[in-house]
């Protein structure tokens, strides 16, 4: 008896999208981990600052809590910003500019996997930054964090990396392939300073304190400080709204860049 075997066309079998996202993220992580310019600087700078200004020099209280506790939130925010901005913008700008992204777009890779990988990778480095600061603080800085507070602080800061990933994507679409790191620092360093991440906000001039209200880094740092009981008393919702608004603007800019690329190439 003749049997009819129905074989689906090769083209109709699709690869596993979740599998692609996992691999893309894994290799994005390995790629960045092996890039000292990224992995060392995003981890070392916040930790170095913390050790220097928190563990070695910090003896007073700030905002009602010990300096070492206060600075976990401040340098945690600083670390998250760095990990997110450099994790997205620098590699995107370079891969766009040098044609690697085009090469990937010619494959069946779903484009969102590419962006998702950069964001998740940035969040992993952000989490590592915050965890390291907490461990140092508890071990050497006399910091007391309950498990709940520690988890909430970690989650707040890791969630807070998202608006900066959005900002990084926006920068990555408009910066040149090699100029992105400089471009990032133009925003990153002044924003960190004006938001009180290096010198606590109350010690900064009144004008800078007013400018801070417009900076996402200020709002994230207040959310982190809120978790350790050292915030300015403004409801957390206000800060979240500011961060979400900022993220939306950045995503809009990134989208415009994406469209511009499509148009220029297509």
């Amino acid at each position, binding site marked *: 008896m003749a049997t009819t075997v129905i074989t689906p066309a090769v083209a109709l079998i699709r690869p596993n999208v979740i599998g692609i996202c996992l691999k893309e993220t894994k290799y994005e992580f*390995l790629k960045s981990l092996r890039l000292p310019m990224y992995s060392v600087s995003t981890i070392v700078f916040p930790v170095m600052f913390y050790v220097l200004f928190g563990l070695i020099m910090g003896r007073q209280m700030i905002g009602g809590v010990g300096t070492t506790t206060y600075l976990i939130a401040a340098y945690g925010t600083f670390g998250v910003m760095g990990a997110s901005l450099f994790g997205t913008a620098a590699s995107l700008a370079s891969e766009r500019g040098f044609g690697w992204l085009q090469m990937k777009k010619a494959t*069946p890779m779903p484009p969102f996997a590419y962006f998702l990988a950069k964001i998740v990778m940035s969040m992993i480095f952000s989490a590592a930054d915050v965890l390291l600061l907490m461990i140092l603080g508890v071990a050497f800085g006399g910091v007391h964090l309950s498990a709940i507070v520690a988890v909430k602080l970690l989650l707040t800061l890791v969630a807070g990396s998202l608006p900066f990933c959005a900002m990084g994507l926006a920068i990555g679409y408009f910066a040149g392939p090699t100029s992105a790191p400089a471009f990032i620092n133009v925003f990153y360093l002044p924003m960190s300073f004006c938001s009180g991440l290096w010198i606590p906000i109350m010690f900064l001039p009144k004008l800078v304190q007013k400018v801070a209200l417009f900076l996402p880094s200020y709002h994230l740092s207040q959310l982190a400080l809120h978790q350790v009981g050292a915030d300015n008393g403004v409801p957390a919702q206000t800060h979240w709204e500011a961060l979400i608004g900022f993220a939306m603007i950045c995503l809009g800019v990134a989208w415009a860049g994406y469209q511009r690329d499509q148009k220029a190439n297509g």
Partner: protein
Amino acid sequence: MGMSTVQTFPARLQAAHHTAALMSKVSKNYGAVQALKDFNLEVQAGELTAVLGPNGAGKTTAIRLLLGLALPTSGRVSVFGGDPTALTTHLRVGTMLQVGRVPETLRVREHIDLFSSYYARPLPMAQTLSAAGIENVRDRKFGDLSGGQKQRVLFALAICGDPDLLFLDEPTVGLDVEARHLLWDEIRQLLVRGKTVVLTTHYLEEADALANRVVVINKGSIIAEGTPGEIKSRTAGKKIRCFTRLSTEVVQALPGVVDVQYDRGAMLIHTSRPEGVLRELLARDLELAGVEVAGAGLEEAFLSLTQEKAN
């Protein structure tokens, strides 16, 4: 000149198993620049089609259109009878593009593992590595590879999904002779396995060595098309080498002269009418010396094709 352009058929009449990719009356403008003009290309399944031309001729634009990375300003592009931008098309296509910088901190096998995951039925890693001849560098980081090894890793990324159709954009550019020949062997293996290949190159030798079919393009248009042998026979010219006091302009103006160059003080004249040119040279320069006449190589053949078209 006797130019054979591809006939274009309505899409429905295309036999899907014969035509792997088709460009029909395609024009592509980038702002004021017309990268392709009324361009027709038919890629036969199971063959290697070489798109040959100087830099800026429109080769890469043609590849980008076939990959769906760019859309035609006018005309139609189809791959396997479908939309080049569709996922179903990309699943059957492998690509080697000219990339300025590849992420350097990933290892060779990691790059291949990632790209293999994009496809439904990738080749086993070992097979990809051996087909590209890079087993010995599988654990090396991309940034630590030589130029030839880097090209072969990019080649591995093109073949790892076991695609039916491969686009290789200048695959051997910048390679030394040995590395180039190794890659040629690997490309020939693809054809043995029944794959279809579209390759762009500005090396005539490469097209001659690999292609079933050569499409010569310049300034966005096809100027000649045929088997490598046909292309060569159409351009049977000669090269005259001599020492002369005549100026470039005078020699260039002689009938049948295609190009004039200098080589260590000697004048190199490429011509389609060597006898007539020699007579003129002898008549005009009584001190003409060191005359040699040789068959023109592929480079000269190509030059004459592009020049004929320009004149």
